[in-house]
């Protein structure tokens, strides 16, 4: 038993075995990569047309309903090796090893590690947000929207929690929910947005706002003592300004 595909080769619809399809696809791609840009269209059209013709004839001869790998092999032999069409212009990826010795090597490793850490820290909220949107697109709605970012709390260091709260806000928030609902009009749940969804969404958004405020206040060290100090400083500043103003009046 073999898996088959249906292909359209220059207007001819053919059933073809999966392995035969792969071979034919690779063969045509190899030839195309060797042709100059201004010849690709014409030559590939002609080739596909000819191959379709030969495969149709082979199907007729063999009394088969599906093109086999053997038929493709024979057709390819008849058309010729891709080498006949020129040199392969696909870029050859050379894996050059950069010599890293002594201080340079250590520096490279340290920089790489820093870059990886930064990338993970910054990338995760974005990935979490995308995951949430994807879940929503597949119909898991508000819970899906919030799920992705929430997963991040287990994996991210607390200093970066404000980014996650931000992504929860964006993901579970009303604007995103509206946009997602506009794009995916009917989710799998086959329901119009109900009050329940709006309320849950709003609550999640408010919760995220509180979480964001808490996280940011921790990072910026905003607490009762600091606030009192700031207020006192401002008050003092106002007193000083008042005195200066009185001095000016007396003068």
């Amino acid at each position, binding site marked *: 038993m073999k898996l088959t595909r249906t292909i359209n*080769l*220059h*207007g*001819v619809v053919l059933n073809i075995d999966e392995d035969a399809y792969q071979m034919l696809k690779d063969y045509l791609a190899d*030839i195309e990569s060797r*042709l100059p840009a*201004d*010849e690709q269209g*014409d*030559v590939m059209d*002609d*080739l*596909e*047309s*000819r191959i*379709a*013709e030969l495969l*149709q004839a082979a199907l007729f001869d063999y009394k088969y309903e599906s093109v086999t790998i053997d038929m493709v092999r024979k057709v390819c*032999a*008849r*058309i*010729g*090796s891709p080498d*006949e*069409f*020129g040199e392969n212009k696909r870029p050859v990826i050379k894996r050059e090893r950069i010599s890293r010795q002594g201080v340079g090597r250590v520096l490279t490793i340290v920089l790489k590690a820093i870059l990886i850490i930064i990338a993970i820290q910054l990338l995760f909220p974005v990935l979490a947000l995308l995951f949430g949107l994807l879940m929503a697109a597949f119909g898991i709605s508000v819970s899906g929207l919030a799920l992705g970012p929430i997963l991040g709390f287990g994996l991210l260091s607390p200093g970066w929690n404000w980014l996650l709260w931000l992504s929860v806000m964006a993901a579970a928030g009303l604007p995103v929910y509206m946009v997602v609902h506009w794009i995916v009009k009917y989710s799998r749940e086959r329901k119009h947005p109900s009050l329940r969804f709006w309320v849950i969404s709003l609550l999640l958004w408010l919760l995220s706002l509180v979480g964001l405020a808490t996280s940011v206040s921790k990072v910026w060290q905003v607490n009762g003592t600091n606030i009192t100090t700031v207020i006192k400083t401002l008050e003092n500043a106002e007193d000083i300004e008042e005195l200066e103003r009185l001095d000016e009046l007396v003068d």
Partner: protein
Amino acid sequence: MVENIKSQMRKGVLEYCILTIISRQEVYTSDILEALRQANLLVVEGTVYPLLSRLKNNGLLKYRWQESTDGPPRKYFTLTEEGQELVAALNDEWRTISKAINKITKS
């Protein structure tokens, strides 16, 4: 080495032969392939398609599509005026080369 020289010689005359075949009448690609195969000039079919494309891009050939009852639509080739002039010039050139080669090989 020997095969390479032989292949190069064949490829060199292939364009001239294709133009000559098309100059006789409007032909379909398979007709060209068949004529070349009978003349023992064709090793693989693939070599013909880039040549046809190049000749067309140089304004020596033109084609028209014709629907086929038993396969994909077919391209029928004819020579342009420029192509006809080139074939006439190549015929003269071939006679000259042929005479020269005969002279060398028989001497």
